[in-house]
């Protein structure tokens, strides 16, 4: 009887094993290779690798995710005795990494630092500060796609014991004091948290009891600050060896993770798992370039995405100084505004919707900025139907105009109101004039000299699109800001 039961258990375990292909990366070495991080467009893979007993950050670049050679990041980042475990925002401009005995002062032991990409190089290193770091070991950062929530591991007292997972959010005043996530943590070591770009799908490693042995990968999800009870990822992701750093690849069925299982090149190696059993929600990647409309030069500019349904500013990022590229991850099913600002240029604003999708896809939105001195831009201001009262959702854009006017005190502008083709010409002309006046009134109330602002109502006389579709009419209903040349 006993023998039959044993066979039944073995059979049950076998049928529960997932059919996942585990393949080591070509970049693995005889030393430790771990903490994989794949950036926007999947064109750069950052890893942490051991070299002569020290850990350094490396990057591999490829157009087709065929990772071959590694380049070590510069000394600005890699000046510590140990450096690595990186998280980068989707725009590729801001990095959080961990370092032990870095040249930049810390609070004791391993700390978290930030870096910015300037002219293609990671530099401008700063310690994340006392809200995040402690005199203890603080490492393994991961950051949400909007750059606003940071997760990391720390062995400071106050958790459940040993190393625990902590969370902090970014406000205008800076990072909030990090707090442990009780439901995820255990009395053992809980390391390498990772949040996927959908800001919900969560993974981490732990050597708590009840796993396959050593450190195992655990899956969870988070929504509105509530975390699901973590589940062991099971075999073949987990083995009796150690598994860490489970990284979910956006809009794909693959993941990377680190393991020191037998059969690798030695020590920790990075593996690719296909399919990833812990699928994230589909996300939409909005990518584009910011360029000078006249010269075509690539520009680094501040790009701001706002959810128009909630009014929440989803992300503020900067397009790359060298190639002008920006990237932001958005959740389908909402309406958004996109603005781009740069000193010396007229800002750009537009709105767009992202339909629900199960697949995830990329949207391309290239932005052309016009140098100050001439040009026009469409303003993201909203009015109720047949009214000229500004909706509250217009306030961010109106504030943007106020800042722009204050930064350029010699400029004068013309606010031009337009309507679609429905209704009486004279009525539309009057409505468009009144809408332009509403915008002027807001600006004057916020300190802009009214002699710098002209208003014109064009009604339906200057459409952008001549079609009579709802989309065309929506485009035609607008208020534009036009720079009045100095002469």
């Amino acid at each position, binding site marked *: 009887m006993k023998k039959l039961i044993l066979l039944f258990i073995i059979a049950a375990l076998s049928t529960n094993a997932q059919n996942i292909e585990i393949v080591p990366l070509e970049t693995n*070495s*005889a*030393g*430790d290779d*771990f*903490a994989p991080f794949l950036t926007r467009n999947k064109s750069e893979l950052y890893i*942490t*690798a*051991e*070299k*002569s*007993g*020290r*850990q350094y950050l*490396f990057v591999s670049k490829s157009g087709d995710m065929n990772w071959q050679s*590694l380049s070590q990041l510069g*000394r600005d980042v*890699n000046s510590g*005795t*140990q*450096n*690595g*475990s990186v998280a980068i925002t989707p725009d590729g401009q801001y990095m959080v*990494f*961990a*370092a*032990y*005995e870095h040249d930049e002062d810390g609070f004791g*032991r*391993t700390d978290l630092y930030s870096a910015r990409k300037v002219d293609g190089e990671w530099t401008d290193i700063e310690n994340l500060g006392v809200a995040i770091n402690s005199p*203890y*070991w603080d*490492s*393994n950062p991961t950051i949400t796609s909007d750059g606003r929530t940071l997760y990391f*591991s720390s*062995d400071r007292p106050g958790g459940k014991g*040993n*190393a625990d997972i902590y969370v902090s959010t970014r406000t205008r005043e800076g990072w909030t004091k990090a707090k442990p996530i009780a439901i995820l943590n255990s009395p053992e*070591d809980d*390391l*390498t948290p990772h949040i996927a770009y959908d800001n919900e799908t969560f993974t981490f490693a732990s050597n708590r009891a009840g796993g396959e042995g050593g450190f195992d990968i655990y899956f969870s999800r988070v929504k509105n600050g509530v975390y699901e009870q973590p589940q062991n990822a099971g075999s073949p992701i987990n083995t009796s060896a150690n598994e*860490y*750093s489970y990284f979910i690849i956006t809009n794909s069925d693959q993941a990377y993770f680190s393991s020191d299982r037998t059969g690798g090149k*030695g*020590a*920790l190696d990075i593996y690719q798992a296909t399919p990833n059993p812990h699928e994230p929600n589909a996300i939409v990647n909005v990518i584009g370039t910011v360029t000078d409309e006249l010269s075509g030069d690539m520009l680094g500019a501040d790009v701001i995405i706002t959810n128009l349904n909630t009014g929440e500013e989803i992300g503020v990022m900067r397009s790359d100084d060298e190639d002008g590229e920006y990237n932001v991850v958005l959740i389908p099913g909402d309406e958004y505004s996109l603005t781009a600002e740069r000193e010396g240029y007229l800002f750009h604003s537009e709105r767009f919707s992202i339909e629900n999708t199960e697949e995830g896809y990329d949207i391309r939105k290239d932005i052309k900025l016009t140098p100050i001195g001439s040009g026009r831009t469409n303003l993201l201001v909203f009015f109720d139907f047949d009214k000229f009262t500004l909706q509250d959702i217009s306030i961010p854009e109106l504030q943007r105009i106020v800042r722009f006017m204050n930064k350029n005190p010699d400029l004068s502008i013309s606010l031009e109101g337009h309507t679609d083709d429905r209704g009486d010409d004279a009525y539309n002309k009057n409505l468009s004039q009144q809408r332009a006046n509403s915008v002027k009134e807001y600006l004057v109330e916020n300190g802009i000299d009214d002699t710098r602002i002209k208003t014109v109502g064009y009604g339906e006389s200057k459409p952008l699109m001549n079609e009579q579709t709802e989309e065309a009419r929506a485009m035609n209903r607008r208020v534009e800001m036009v720079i009045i040349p100095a002469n």
Partner: protein
Amino acid sequence: MKAYLLLFFLLLFYFSSAQEDVLRPKGKPQSELTNTYSKDASKFSIGFEVGGNYNMFSQDLTWNPPLENSIFAVTESGSGISPYFGVFFDMDFTQIFGFHAKLQYNTISYGNSGEGFVDCTTFDEFGFISDIRLANSEFEYQENYSYLNLELYAKINFTNEFFALFGPTIYIPASDVESEITQRSLDSECFFFEDPNDPANTQVSELNTTITDDLEYTRIGLGLTLGYKFYINENVYLAPQLHYHYMLTALNENTTIVDDTQALNVYSSQLTAENITANHLRLSVALGFDIMGGM
């Protein structure tokens, strides 16, 4: 020497536990430390080193029969500073252990001065001895010589910057010993004779003598070094180091001479010098260039 060894092993114990890293708060498990050190990524360094010795000479002097206030008593000890320079080769086998070798041109210099009594013979205007007594005089000596040092060390890395070296040092003679001796009379009525055959006419109050002798013996010592690397860039570092060299072999064989500096007033005495040695405390700066294998 015992104190230095104790400090060395205490530091070794403190620093040899696994260092934390960005993945694990307690670092890599000890069992994996040597297994995973990558030969593909092994590192060696070459470079230059310059520094200064603080030399500490000593010998045990015995007079038979005992002779008090001999001017030679000052030669019981001596100290001095001298420079050295050389090249080095450094290689790490694992994260903690490695090998270090130095080849140096090492100058040794030390001396001392002190007072004692010597026979003083005074002469009248006719050149006849008028008085014999003891007079106070000063004896000063300086010895200079050089070696070619070959130093072979086991290296221990406490951290990636802080290291220690321990091992044998071989001192190969590279010059003669030059001894500069100065004797000064502190008694206005007593003088030294430049020509003992014509003492009355060759009186001087200060007598300088230079003696050159063979530096015969290759010496073996033990060296202990503590150093710290300051990286200028990824592959170049400056490493100030503090060394102590304890010589296991004597500077010279035991020597016996006749001390007749007070023979006229007291007696001649047999002076034996034993345990003749010179140890060295050194401070140096090395300029090192890391040469690593690729990943």
